[in-house]
């Protein structure tokens, strides 16, 4: 996103992929300020693209007449919203209290080891992004992570590489 006062990019990554704006047209056409608030709208955008692309947020601003700065303010306030694209598999590592007590820090280290990326970044093969989340609500089965919609419970550090490598194998990637 561009900073309005200095016209310099404040985005961390300059190489954003091309975004197909036609995908969001239906959502924006259906926008009705009486029933939809900005958060719901942004959730809709993220459902389509997996993140909130800068070009789309500009469109949102034009359609809703809400200033870009305010949209950026809301998007950065909530942890659910992402301004960078994610991999095909989104790994949500639970950092709730029960998971923490049961060793989620070691799980994160194992995850970093096998993925070789930092939190929020995509692996070079485009497959994975991992993020830390507050409580997934499966506290009795700690430590827990969710990959797309599948929950993996009672994890050990050894399980992590196994799970990731299984997905890599499914996707035909060399391990």
């Amino acid at each position, binding site marked *: 996103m561009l900073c309005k006062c200095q016209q310099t990019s404040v985005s961390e990554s300059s190489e954003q992929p091309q975004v197909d704006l036609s995908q969001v047209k239906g959502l924006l056409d259906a926008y009705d300020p009486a029933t939809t608030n900005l*958060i*719901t709208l942004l959730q809709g955008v993220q459902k389509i693209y997996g993140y909130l692309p800068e070009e789309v947020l500009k469109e949102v601003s034009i359609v809703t007449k809400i200033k870009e700065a305010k949209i950026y303010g*809301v998007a950065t306030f909530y942890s659910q919203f992402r301004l960078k694209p994610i991999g095909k598999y989104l790994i949500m590592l639970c950092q709730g*209290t029960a998971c923490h007590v049961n060793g989620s*820090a070691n799980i994160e280290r194992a995850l970093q080891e096998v993925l070789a990326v930092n939190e929020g970044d995509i692996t070079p093969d485009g497959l994975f992004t991992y993020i830390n989340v507050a*409580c997934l*609500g499966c506290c009795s089965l700690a430590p827990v992570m969710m990959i797309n919609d599948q929950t993996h419970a009672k994890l050990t550090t050894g399980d992590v590489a196994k799970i990731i490598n299984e997905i890599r194998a499914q996707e035909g990637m060399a391990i």
Partner: protein
Amino acid sequence: MKFVVGSGSCGIAAGADRIFTLLNQEINENNLKASLEITGCIGTCYLEPILEVYSENNAMKRFTKVTEESLLEIISQAKEGTLFSEDNANDLVSEQLGHQDRIVLRNCGVINPESIDDYLTIGGYQSIEACLREKTPQEVIEEVKIAGLRGRGGAGFPTWFKWNAALKSAGSVKYMVCNADEGDPGAFMDRSVLEGDPHSLIEGMMIAGFAIGARKGIVYVRAEYPLAIVRLEKAIAQAKERHILGKNIFGLDGVDFDLSIKTGAGAFVCGEETALIASLEGERGMPRLKPPFPAEKGYFDHPTNINNVETLANVPWIMSNGGAAFAARGAEKSAGTKVFALTGKIQNGGLVEIPMGMTLREVIFGVGGGIKNGKKFKAVQLGGPSGGCIPEELLDTPVTYEDINKTGAIVGSGGMVVMDEDTCMVEMARFFLDFTCKESCGKCTYCRIGTRRMLEILERITKGDGKPEDIPLLEELSYKIKEGAMCGLGQTAPNPVLTTLKYFRHEYEEHINEKKCSAGTCHELISYRILEDKCIGCTVCAKVCPTNAIAGERKSPHVIDQDACIKCGQCYEKCNFNAIVKL
């Protein structure tokens, strides 16, 4: 015959979906005369996946920790007709439920949450219908006052008082909001109610709506609970179909109640009422000064009442059984029951609902079965990031709002995380401050910058760089933040530090003065070593080491290269000869 699979999020995480699919397949392939249903979480998460089988004459047999193999055995017994020949003698679930008193969770794990008929069969929606036909809003509020129901979200504020304020507030448009943004990491009772008994929540909201004069309700649910949202959506759609929600409900002219869902976007501070309202309006979820209270000026400036899921799930029961029956349970000022999420290093982890006033010891060692793996109890954390750690010597404290407050912790929303001797209390305090620091909305300086400074101090202590003056500095910052912050998040953020300093000060001193973490948690302060006399050279540790930091010949003692070791602990976990020690 009827098969029922426990399909809450935790059951599914433990493999309930796989069991359901396999069961469906087996029933079809074997032409069994059986139906297949789901139910919510019964609370004994440590026994998941759970399968119940009902015979034609309604005898029930329950199976726990069901695997694909044990399922095939169950199917073959069902085919031979021998399934019910033996008594259900060793039913751990029933034993666990025997310790409890279930009001909020009365239907969880009992009915099918996706079937409104199941709810109607057990008397569902009769409480609201009776209120609408026979009672005035004042009478409903009076009943809740007799019950002594207090807000289960954390603050413990009397529910009737809030309802009364919203009722008295002028305005023709009012809103009834349910806070289902269960943000405390370590609590999941609201998720369980939403997934296991969504109609109870809807009915509770309708009664509250009637009491304050609201025709519209909004449930604000966390985005992290996708299954809860799906089940609630289904329940709302079913209730609309039956004219229980919508216009002219129950055939009563001019009586309307509409319910919609708003999905939260992840912000702990939205548990605060004014922040939640800002978020509902599509804004950044930042709290504002009170008054005006939401009862006067809430959602888009209309009078608004906000209650939490557990509070509302109590309401239909109170209306049908009477406030006095509720007040008869629990303690004097803390009436009724409370659901706790027992997690951490506990034997029987899961959700338990107990009458208030039970002691912590009874909950943890009686209902919860004590500590896992024969370890020693160290502390129990109540109230999440706003709460505190309670030590062993205070285990006989009764669980009431007042008694828990005296320890420096709070009852909170009901997270009860049990910690054993391997949990470092300084690290725990660091964990919570890391959480509150990230979740601070940034409005007040004390909270925004104060929690950051506290986190920095705690980080350096856990890394072995702490200084003796850090302890008084932490205390000073704690009291200043408590005084200077505007909302509950900031005012309670220092509690985890203050309680650990009060009860576990020696652990802080050990980290600072001796650069030691005797719990063996703080990474920078520990190292793994192989005991030469115990290592038989089986090479398991060397194989499992992700950084190839372990070297040695087969059948001779191995050695860890301390520079290459990342202290992941995998070798420690895998060694079968106790030859690896944490120092």
